[in-house]
């Protein structure tokens, strides 16, 4: 029997995420911690398995160690399969044309042989830096129903922010007549979410043509999609309604974490039918003795201090008299007695010693001129010494 997969997903996870500064000094953006117990890549991977897609290529390039180790054999997402499953696809050496991935389209192009192993009808292209829950199967059904060559997921954004996105200009029937990458004068508020379904044969054809074009930047948004549009291929928009957030910047990452708080949060993770899977750590339940208000706390915590409006990752120790307010603590963080962390994002394995002060009250901090909207960022593995001080908006990746 010939074995094949109807749809193969390709997850672009190679980006550096330079606007996350210290958080991505040593790890790729999709491996950045999110929401106390997750990593960003949990979202697209879980969406895949929850949509019935069990074959996923993860394209890595920048600092892949943590990401590779985290994805592993894919078991936490039920993606350990005898045929299909999750595969890490890193750039490789070939007889000629040895190269790094030179853009999103080139990364997919270099892995055409991977996709062809599964003889798919459709290919789903995903990004590794978005927080959302989506049923790709519904999008695939729409793609099939329209007999489309390419379907682009999109959502409405406020008009004044539209120029930050790839904007789709569509006809009433949902077909796309124009695609504009970050237009200065947007004609529509429909932003591309960077999620594409291609009919596989068309994708392979246009990727091969794009590769031969020396003027191309090898980018989906800039080159491949416009080329298909110009050639008159059938391109459809697919409206997504629900929570979706690009967490490519410090402030958007902070906001997305805060969106998890509250009994009725902006983004709900507790529903049981579309569970976000993750490589759950083996820590015991959190021990809580202090004051924890409007916050989420992952397992393994020893919480004896005060926590307000914050996201506390796995195995964090908040000592008596310590205070964490409006902050995101990623995991394995110790905040010692008398220390105060305010309006900050703290990466994994950080120790904040006694009476140290990190960040400033949000109301004050947002007035500070900084690259992060006043959010203080502590990089992985550092120690803030006793009585140490890190000001609002500072990005620190060395001991202070």
């Amino acid at each position, binding site marked *: 029997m010939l074995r094949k997969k109807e749809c193969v997903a390709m997850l672009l996870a190679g980006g550096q995420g330079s606007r996350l500064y210290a958080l991505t000094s040593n790890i790729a953006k999709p491996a950045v911690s999110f*929401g*106390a*117990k997750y990593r960003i890549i949990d979202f697209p991977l879980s969406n895949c398995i929850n949509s019935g897609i069990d074959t996923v290529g993860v394209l890595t390039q920048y600092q892949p160690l943590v990401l590779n180790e985290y994805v592993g054999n894919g*078991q*936490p997402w039920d993606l350990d399969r005898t045929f299909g499953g999750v595969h890490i696809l890193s750039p490789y050496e070939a007889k000629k044309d040895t190269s790094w991935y030179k853009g999103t389209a080139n990364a997919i192009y270099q892995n055409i042989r991977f996709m062809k192993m599964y003889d798919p009808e459709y290919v789903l292209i995903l990004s590794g830096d978005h927080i959302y829950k989506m049923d790709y199967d519904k999008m695939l059904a729409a793609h099939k129903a329209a007999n489309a060559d390419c379907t682009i997921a999109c959502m409405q954004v406020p008009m004044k922010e539209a120029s930050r996105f790839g904007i789709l200009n569509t006809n009433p029937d949902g077909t796309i007549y124009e695609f504009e990458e970050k237009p200065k004068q947007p004609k529509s508020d429909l932003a591309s979410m960077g999620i594409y379904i291609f009919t596989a044969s068309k994708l392979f054809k246009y990727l091969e043509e794009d590769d031969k074009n020396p003027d191309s930047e090898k980018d989906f948004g800039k080159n491949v999609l416009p080329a298909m549009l110009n050639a008159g291929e059938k391109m459809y928009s697919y409206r997504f309604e629900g929570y979706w957030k690009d967490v490519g910047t410090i402030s958007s990452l902070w906001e997305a974490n805060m969106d998890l*708080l*509250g*009994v009725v949060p902006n983004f709900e*993770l*507790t529903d049981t039918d579309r*569970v*976000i*899977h*993750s490589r*759950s750590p*083996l*820590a*015991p*339940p*959190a*021990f*809580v*003795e202090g*004051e*924890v*208000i*409007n*916050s*989420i*706390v*992952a*397992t393994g915590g*020893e919480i004896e201090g005060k*926590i307000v409006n914050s*996201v*506390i990752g796995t195995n964090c120790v908040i000592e008596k008299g310590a205070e964490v307010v409006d902050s995101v603590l990623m995991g394995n963080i110790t905040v010692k007695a008398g220390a105060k962390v305010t309006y900050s994002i703290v990466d994994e394995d950080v120790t904040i010693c006694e009476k140290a002060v990190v960040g400033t009250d949000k109301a004050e901090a947002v007035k500070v001129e900084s690259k992060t909207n006043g959010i203080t960022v502590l990089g992985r593995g550092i120690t803030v010494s006793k009585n140490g001080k890190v000001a609002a908006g500072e990005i620190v990746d060395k001991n202070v």
Partner: protein
Amino acid sequence: MATTVGVIFSSINEEDIPELTKVRSTGSVPYGGRYRLVDFALSNMVNSGITTVGMITKNNYQSLMDHIGSGKYWDLARKDGGLILLPPYSDETETLYKNRLEALKGAMAFLRKAKEDFVVLADSDAVYKLDYSKVIEAHIAKNADITMVYHEHELVKSHYYMAFETDKNDKITDIQINPTGKGVKKNYINVMVARTSFLLRLIQDAIQHGYTSFGKDILSPGVKTYNLYAYKFDGYYANICSLESYFKANMALLDKNVRQEIFGDRDVYTKVNDSAPAKFAASAVVKNSLVSDGCVIEGTVENCVLFRGVKIGKGSVVKNCILMTDNIVGDNCKLAYVVSDKNSVIRDKRELAGCEVQPYFINKGSLI
């Protein structure tokens, strides 16, 4: 290094906690927020370097199987060895095993196949962290036939405990099957090490002689004929043999030192469930409690162990309670000394109370 195979009795002593074992075997009794009792013996084995474990089951082992699955969470899903379930085995004359000896008889095929030199037998009704390889080292050093692990404590309940006396070299000089009297004794914790071949000979011999009790017919008289040695375990040990001891053993985890000993240093493996992190509402007040993933707390919680997915409504006050997975407590309830099995719902404004020695028990899936 000596190679070792493990055998776990997952259903032994079920009659001691009928409330909790009505719907499951001893090994799958939920404990400590996210664990099952079997996790402790099984993790001890894995952390001792044992990679082949036979698990003897009896009846109602559906929830146990659901928990351990292929054994992958213990790294025991192996091509060679791994976790092997040993369901009740019967020839024409026997049906379900009635005691430990008959249970072992059913495991003989597994043990014969085992290539490992030594075997560790352990029950699954206790919470403790013990490196079994240390017991085997002692076993080899003493040239023992059988090494039995004991823990010194005051006798709580006597009917299945064995207690022994030893000489100064740890050689067992007397085994009491039904120890009585007050005071600290050397209580056998049902962890035993032997050479695999020796254990097989013992079982074979017992079958031939029609013995019915491993303790009474083999171990107790064996004091004279075999080299039986004792190994002292002096860490934290909690045997779950009643609802009261179940309550106490859960509450013990609120002590930092106990948590450190049981969970620090080496992991306790368990089935992973991808619940979202615990959520504390603006109205939450939580003191001295363990809170698992998936909990949503809007009320007051003090001295409690909350399992995964427990919801505590607004205005409710929950003190000294153990609420198992997916318990839902409505608004303005008052709960004290309640042990509630999985999936129960407690409606708004209910007031339920037990006491420390007799917690109020709520059956699995109740609506109150």
